[in-house]
């Protein structure tokens, strides 16, 4: 009922105002960029020997900033400005990974140092990435607009910058992201198993945060908690002892 009363426009409320409870979390700001930076700091760089840029999943932002529509709009503004890049990770049609453009380019260049296709990749980064904020490219676009021939495209796929989507089109990819995806899927499964085994399939958020991470969870508990909440795989129920995470019905 508290939430509903807050929603009734202020003009309709009686003159006597009760003390309003303070904002729920520290990031009640509603801005996406600080949220992105704080989530990126949760990403374990040393696990992948610093070869991957800090990847944040788009739905993790929903657990930090409550208004989903505002998150989507601000994220697409940031994408059009060229500050961040979105990637399709491949295991779900709806899941997108977000990385800062600067980090991404730095890591790609780092991964191709000393290899044959370094020149092509540098050319690709310089021409295509700066002009197109898209997630995928198709053959016509690559040939006409940017002058990349078939052998060039093969080199880019070998470098890991492009992944095959279907005949004649490619997703933009992060080289070496396979290891991250494997760790992520295993970790997510382990977290869901943890909650599944709990009594009534629910666990207090504070309890979960203070637990030791199971061995399968390599990316860190906070990272996975944001993922589960944002993807709505668990329902957040406010109760007197804090927030309760209950497994959502499939």
């Amino acid at each position, binding site marked *: 009922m508290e939430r509903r009363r807050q*929603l009734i*426009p202020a*003009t*309709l409320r009686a003159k006597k105002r009760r003390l309003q409870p303070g904002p729920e979390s520290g990031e009640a700001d509603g801005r996406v960029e600080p949220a992105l930076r704080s989530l990126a700091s949760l990403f374990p760089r040393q696990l992948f020997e610093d070869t991957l840029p800090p990847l944040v999943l788009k739905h993790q932002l929903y657990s930090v900033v409550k*208004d*989903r*529509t505002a998150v989507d709009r601000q994220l*697409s503004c940031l994408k059009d400005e060229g500050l961040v890049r979105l990637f399709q990770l491949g295991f779900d049609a*709806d899941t997108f990974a977000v990385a800062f453009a600067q980090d991404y380019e730095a890591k790609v260049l780092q991964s191709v140092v000393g290899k044959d296709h370094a020149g092509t990749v540098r050319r690709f980064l310089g021409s295509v990435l700066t002009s197109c904020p898209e997630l995928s490219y198709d053959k016509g676009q690559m040939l006409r607009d940017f002058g990349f021939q078939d052998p060039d495209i093969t080199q880019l796929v070998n470098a890991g910058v492009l992944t095959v989507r279907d005949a004649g089109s490619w997703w933009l990819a992060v080289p070496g992201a396979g290891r991250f995806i494997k760790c992520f899927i295993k970790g997510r499964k382990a977290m869901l198993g943890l909650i599944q085994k709990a009594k009534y399939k629910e666990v207090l958020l504070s309890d979960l945060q203070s637990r030791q991470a199971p061995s399968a969870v390599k990316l860190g508990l906070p990272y996975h908690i944001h993922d589960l909440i944002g993807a*709505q795989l668990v329902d957040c129920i406010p109760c007197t002892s804090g927030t309760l995470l209950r497994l959502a019905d499939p």
Partner: protein
Amino acid sequence: MLAFISARQAGLDDPLRLRRAECTRRVLSLELNKDRDVERIHGSGVNTLDIEPVEGRYMLSGGSDGVIVLYDLENFSRKPCYTCKAICSVGRSHPDVHKFSVETVQWYPHDTGMFTSSSFDKTLKIWDTNTLQPADVFNFEGTVYSHHMSPIATKHCLIAVGTKSPKVQLCDLKSGSCSQILQGHRQEVLAVVWSPRSEYILATASADSRVKLWDVRRASGCLITLDQHNGEKSKASSEAANTAHNGRVNGLCFTSDGLHLLTMGTDDRMRLWNSSSGENTLVNYGKVCNESRKGLKFTISHGCDPEFAFVPYGSTIAVYTIYSGELITMLRGHYNTVDCCVFQPNFQELYSGSKDCNILAWVPALREPIPDEDAEKQYLNPAFEDGWSSSDDEG
């Protein structure tokens, strides 16, 4: 509240502003009320509800056993405790009752003398309310999932019917013919709805993940196919191009001004579209669980300032603000899956029907009346009367 009234009186405020503010306040305080009840007639799940648009007084309900019941929602009993009675019904003993489940019922938009019902027995029946006899029957080759008649049409009397076949059929009430079809979908059509803004615009949703907007005067094809990525081919895989959802689309509803269209799909997403340009407004409602294999009937409020969508969500009803995507509350009360809900705009009440054979009335929680000392004892619902007596004698 007093400020609103005095501003309205002095002419400082638009007359509609007070009305909208009060409607919004009432919708935000919807809850189950112990004094309001709908008589329980159905013996199996209630699939569809419709309130007549003329007075908002009579409600039709269609059940999974083919029974159609007519209720009177108006309270003339002068008591706060009221049960909405069923006036008449087309029961299992009626000679022309539908053989299988009734999927959609709709009142004739201009008066209550007629209503239409469509069912899984592949028929659409036009009923005369006063005699409760079918005036006409249209037969189809596949099961009928949904039908709709335009609420504002004056130049035509077409009923759009969505069946198992990919072709949308248009039945003409005046001539009794059923010859016009709209071709374009590739799988069964799960929902059809006419625009409340233009009498010739029709929206259809199909199991092939596409939603199409048609102008029925145009023979060649649909006007727009809604695309969830707004033309950005890069976001989806190539098979998902030009689709409204990533699964079957089974719910459609226009806002009351007809400017926006809400669609629901089995990919657990709800999307809001600009109905004139077909653009996805990208409002994010989060995960809206949708496990229905046939159409899902949800409704949008009318007359409030942020409009609200009432969506059946498992055994509860989720209330969202349409333009910002925020989940306001979940209305809990049903024992089983909620199938349909309708909004009564005159009193801001919500009626919902579910598989547990109940129709629940969600009424705005009124402000408590100031207790009067010399007034007579307040009327108490007999179910809540305290029958305990401290004396040792019996009775």
